[in-house]
């Protein structure tokens, strides 16, 4: 139970941080435009700026320092440490920009009822893969074959298109499976209005109903095949088991609520990670996202190669990837926590909860597909491949 509180508190904190971030920028926008109806004199721009603006300034600063540091490392070996520190910081800030799979990974996690833990692992794995692909492309094209930038850029473009197509295909598969769940939840919802009404005056009766419906409910079997989904899928069912045992001692609503939460929080983590082909699906996500390298890493690698310090470039790329992973993982955890929060909120309204959760999952699956298609056809801003 303390862990549940902690988790809930964390989710709240993250949500609050997000709101503050958004609010901060909005306030600045309003302030910038209307001090007294006219534009603010540009000279008096104070240094305290939007957090986003600060991030942006920081990452440009780090990136520009990289080339001079690599040059310095030629004569002074200790500059390599500076290079690694800069790369790490740059990775953290840089991952906030477009690409790097934040959106795809987060949407995937939400669509698939994944745990925050798995989200973190996926984030690190995909960042590692991005670094690896960058090193392999530059290593083969530039170092072994001494190909020109034009050739290298063609290779990058092919890899990029493949990555986007994979994301779209992956999204299509998610939409297909999650769409089924959503439709079933919609169908299951048909009789629920009456049930929901009955639920409040006669609590035990409502459970009985729910239980008798379960064998005919396709969702039920779904919950069974993926054991770790069960508490989340049907919190009322889970609560029901406990309710039977402790029904006499604590027949209150509160007892139920805590049961649900703890069931989720203390879920069997190792079996969750191994569950129902989850890793295989997870790795297809990593592959789709991670196969496209970051343009910045390619530039740094080629520059390091030209300075005769390819190994320093490789080290910088992996450290950069580590920084990227931290940011992507943080965002993934926020996404998963937000969904937990939504589950808690929607769980309060009995029958509707399942439909809402299925709807969110379906929506997230749709997002993955949209991202893939958008990236493929150039509607979604991605990091441009350096091709000119």
């Amino acid at each position, binding site marked *: 139970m303390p862990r549940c509180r902690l988790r809930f508190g964390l989710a709240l904190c993250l949500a609050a941080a997000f709101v503050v971030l*958004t609010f901060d*920028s*909005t306030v*600045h*926008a309003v302030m*910038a435009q209307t001090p007294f109806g006219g534009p603010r004199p*540009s000279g008096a*721009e104070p*240094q305290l*700026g*939007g*957090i*986003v*603006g*600060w*991030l*942006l*300034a920081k*990452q*440009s600063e780090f*990136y*520009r320092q*990289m*080339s001079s540091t690599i040059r310095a490392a030629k004569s002074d070996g200790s500059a390599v440490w500076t290079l690694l520190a800069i790369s790490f910081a740059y990775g953290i800030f*840089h991952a*906030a*920009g*477009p690409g790097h799979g934040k*959106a795809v990974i987060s949407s995937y996690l939400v669509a698939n009822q994944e745990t925050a833990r798995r989200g973190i692992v996926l984030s690190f794995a995909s960042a590692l893969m991005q670094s690896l692909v960058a090193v392999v492309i530059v290593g083969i094209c*530039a170092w072994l074959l*001494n*190909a*020109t*930038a*034009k*050739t*290298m850029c063609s290779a990058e473009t092919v890899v990029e298109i493949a990555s986007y197509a994979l994301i779209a295909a992956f999204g299509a598969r998610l939409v297909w499976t999650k769409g089924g769940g959503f439709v079933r939840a919609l169908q299951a919802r048909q009789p629920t209005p009456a049930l929901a009404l009955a639920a409040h005056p006669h609590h035990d009766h409502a459970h009985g109903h729910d239980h008798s419906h379960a064998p005919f409910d396709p969702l039920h079997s779904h919950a069974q095949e993926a054991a770790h989904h069960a508490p989340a899928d049907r919190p009322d069912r889970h609560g029901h088991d406990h309710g039977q045992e402790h029904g006499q001692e604590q027949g209150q609503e509160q007892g139920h609520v805590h049961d649900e939460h703890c069931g989720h929080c203390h879920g069997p983590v190792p079996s969750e990670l191994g569950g129902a082909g989850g890793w295989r699906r997870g790795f297809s996500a990593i592959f789709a996202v991670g196969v496209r390298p970051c*343009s*910045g890493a*390619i*530039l*740094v690698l*080629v*520059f390091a*190669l*030209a*300075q005769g310090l390819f190994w320093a470039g490789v080290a910088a790329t992996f450290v950069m990837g580590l920084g990227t992973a931290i940011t992507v993982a943080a965002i993934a955890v926020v996404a998963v926590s937000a969904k937990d929060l939504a589950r808690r909120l929607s769980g309060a309204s009995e029958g*509707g909860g399942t439909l*809402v959760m299925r*709807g*969110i999952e379906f*929506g997230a699956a749709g*997002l993955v597909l949209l991202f893939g298609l958008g990236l493929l056809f150039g509607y*979604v*801003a991605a*990091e*441009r491949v*350096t*091709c*000119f």
Partner: protein
Amino acid sequence: MNAWMHRRLGLLLLAVALAFGAGAAQAHPHVWITASSELIYAPDGSITGVRHAWTFDDMFSTYALQGLETKTKGVYSREELAPLAQTNVESLKEFGFFTFAKADGKKAKFQEPVDYFLEYKDAALTLHFTLPLITPVRPRQLALEVFDPEFFIDFTYADKDPVRLVGAPAACQMKFQRPSDGAANAQQIGEQNFLSGGNSNFGAMFANKILVDCP
């Protein structure tokens, strides 16, 4: 779908919009160009085109030169760089050469670039090229903007002689406006972009604006 479901959907859409907006707001440059430009006038006082000189940062210059064979190591002649210059102008076409002109508020279009070549000096490549206007214009006011709408490239004009008028009528007055210094600028995008949401004209906040008034 009841009202409650609609509200949920609205929240979800809002989150999506924010995700897209935030993504765009955090785009940042990977290539830096130090630019200088010349506006070229015909004897009759009409503007015929723009001549650019763009110097790339050392990281990108090194990247562009990767795999290029030369007679002497580290020395690149204009001829040796010719194929690369060709690639440059061909690729830049897709982006409208990052040069956007308006004559008295009406968009003025450019032809394919001419007289283009690359020059290598002090570990940096400079791309020279001229963009002729499809039809020369003689407006009361010409507005020229140079920027990358996606802000993958940062355009900063040179400190010395950023913009010159070549053969302009004596009465013409030129005003050049830089996007303000990096920090103040970055601050602006964070703020404005959260409101506007879209990313199509995102880099416009980094536009270098050249205004020429000819009475």
